[in-house]
């Protein structure tokens, strides 16, 4: 077991290193952080720009391999370098992870729980009205991309607020910095409403489809019949035997979603103006921020691999058939 874990860890470290390096090279060769300084009024002297860029390890006059060397050395010691305007990438990342976590934890959990429940109901009532309604709704929702959904939600809220004459539901930003104490807390919650809806609706639709299919697979299996032959009610047999078994595959998806959620909410974050990890993905490219691009890549790679590991663990925990003795 220990040896296996070590090997897996080693492979993952290599994968992350390659991914981050590739992203760094790509960004370093194609992006132009100099542009941010060149067009300024009043113009900045080239020597000054060079000095600044050198300090941030962003100078395109330095050979790319040398820059890469400096960056890599930093990363190994846990320092991801500077952002385009000199801030610490580490600090930025820490702050943004917290923002994303706050937003996404709720959305993901709600999406999973509601989705699984709806999917199970749908499967049990196969071809009945409930099933059809859930099915059609999730189909429609899955066909609406997040950015359309988020925009729609924002428009609706805007109109609602305008109609009411005051801001019932906030639709941009994370909180109102002017408030404090309990009010601030309430305000934060209010700011969470729309992003959470926009995030979880898609997840609900997705999980309900998956869970329905898994349940249907299980429903016709012999062990459900055995459970009923024992004298259990259909309901009990379904929840106790079928649902429990059908949860295994859904849980692996869940683990994946959990790991990738940080960068998965790019659109929601951008549209509702939250400065989380997902928004950073877009911001860093727009700002020609080489070190941030590499850091985001590094972070997503770690998340994906961690998610894979988590889903394996979850399956092992839920399914005695794969549990390691």
């Amino acid at each position: 077991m220990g040896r296996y874990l070590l090997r897996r860890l080693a492979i993952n470290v290599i994968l992350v290193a390659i991914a981050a390096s590739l992203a760094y090279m790509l960004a370093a060769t194609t992006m132009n952080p100099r542009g941010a300084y060149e067009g300024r009024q009043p113009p900045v002297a080239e020597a000054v720009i060079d000095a600044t860029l050198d300090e941030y390890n962003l100078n395109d006059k330095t050979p790319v391999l040398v820059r890469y060397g400096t960056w890599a050395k930093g990363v190994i010691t846990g320092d991801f370098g500077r952002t385009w305007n000199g801030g610490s990438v580490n600090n930025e990342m820490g702050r943004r992870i917290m923002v994303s976590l706050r937003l996404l934890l709720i959305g993901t959990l709600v999406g999973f729980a509601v989705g699984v429940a709806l999917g199970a109901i749908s499967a049990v009532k196969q071809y009945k009205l409930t099933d059809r309604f859930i099915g059609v709704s999730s189909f429609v929702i899955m066909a609406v991309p997040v950015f359309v959904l988020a925009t729609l939600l924002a428009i609706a809220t805007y109109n609602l607020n305008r109609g009411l004459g005051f801001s019932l539901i906030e639709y941009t930003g994370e909180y109102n910095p002017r408030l404090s104490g309990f009010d601030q807390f309430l305000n934060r919650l209010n700011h969470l409403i729309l992003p959470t809806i926009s995030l979880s609706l898609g997840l609900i639709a997705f999980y309900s489809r998956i869970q329905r299919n898994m349940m249907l697979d299980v429903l016709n299996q012999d062990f459900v019949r055995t459970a009923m032959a024992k004298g259990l009610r259909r309901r009990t047999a379904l929840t106790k035997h079928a649902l429990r078994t059908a949860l295994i595959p859904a849980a692996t998806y869940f683990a994946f979603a959990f790991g990738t959620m940080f960068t998965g909410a790019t659109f929601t974050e951008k549209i509702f103006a939250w400065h989380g990890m997902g928004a950073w993905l877009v911001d860093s490219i727009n700002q020609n921020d080489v070190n941030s691009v590499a850091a985001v890549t590094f972070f997503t790679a770690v998340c994906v691999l961690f998610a894979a590991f988590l889903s394996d663990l979850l399956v092992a925990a839920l399914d005695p058939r794969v549990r390691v003795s």
Partner: protein
Amino acid sequence: MRSKVVLRRLFRNKQARYGTIALVVLVALAYLGPFVGPYDWTDKDFLAFLSPPGGDHWWGTTTIGQDMYAVTLRGMQKSIIIGFLVAIISTGLAAIVGAFAGYFGGWVDKVLMWGVDLLLVLPSFLIIAIISPRLREGASWLWFVVLLAAFSWMITSRVVRSMTLSLREREYVLAAVYMGIPRWKIIFRHIVPNLSSLLIIDATLNVSGAVIGEAALSFFGFGIQPPDVSLGTLIAEGSRNATGYPWLFAFPAGLLVLLVLSVNLIGDGLRDALDPGSNS
């Protein structure tokens, strides 16, 4: 023979029937619609900026006086083409890589799956976003298709691989081995055709995935580059002014949703029709 059975089952399936009808209508609208409209998508009407739908401009006009009807259909053409191309390329790639990895096993498998893992770990959105705006030459959208396809085949190829692993032990494959048929031939004659249900479904769902993916990247300006348009660029444009000029947003967004919905419906119907175990 079998395809006839599948088609019959497909059309007995209500979802798939509506999906197909909707898709046919949408494709017809995208490609035949522009001939009906009074304006070309490149025309600019300097007398009507941001005019609401009605009159001459059926779906209104944009900030620079383009006819929304013409522009939207043009954008839809692009989205449809991109969707189909990406789906075909990525599913084909997935089938070949997965089948070879699964059938040959050993180091072939290891190398290919390692590549798959690496691609999965790379944030595709970010890579495409960095590369694609820098491809401004004439056929840049074709490169864009290649990029999208390059990042959307990995999961399927893993599924293909694991199914190949079980197909490999099937007796008809063993029979072919014992007849002395070369391995690559077995892959193309016995393995890939028997994965066709999975591949067809996957390709269908990849179409909608690619349409959404394109729109998503274009939404941030990382996809189709102006002056070319796609549903994504139009939605991006429209969402900025959505509260004041809803038609800029409503038409492209509505068509995108319809397009994705119809393809998904077909995909789901295909799943039922191709799966001999299902009884719908």
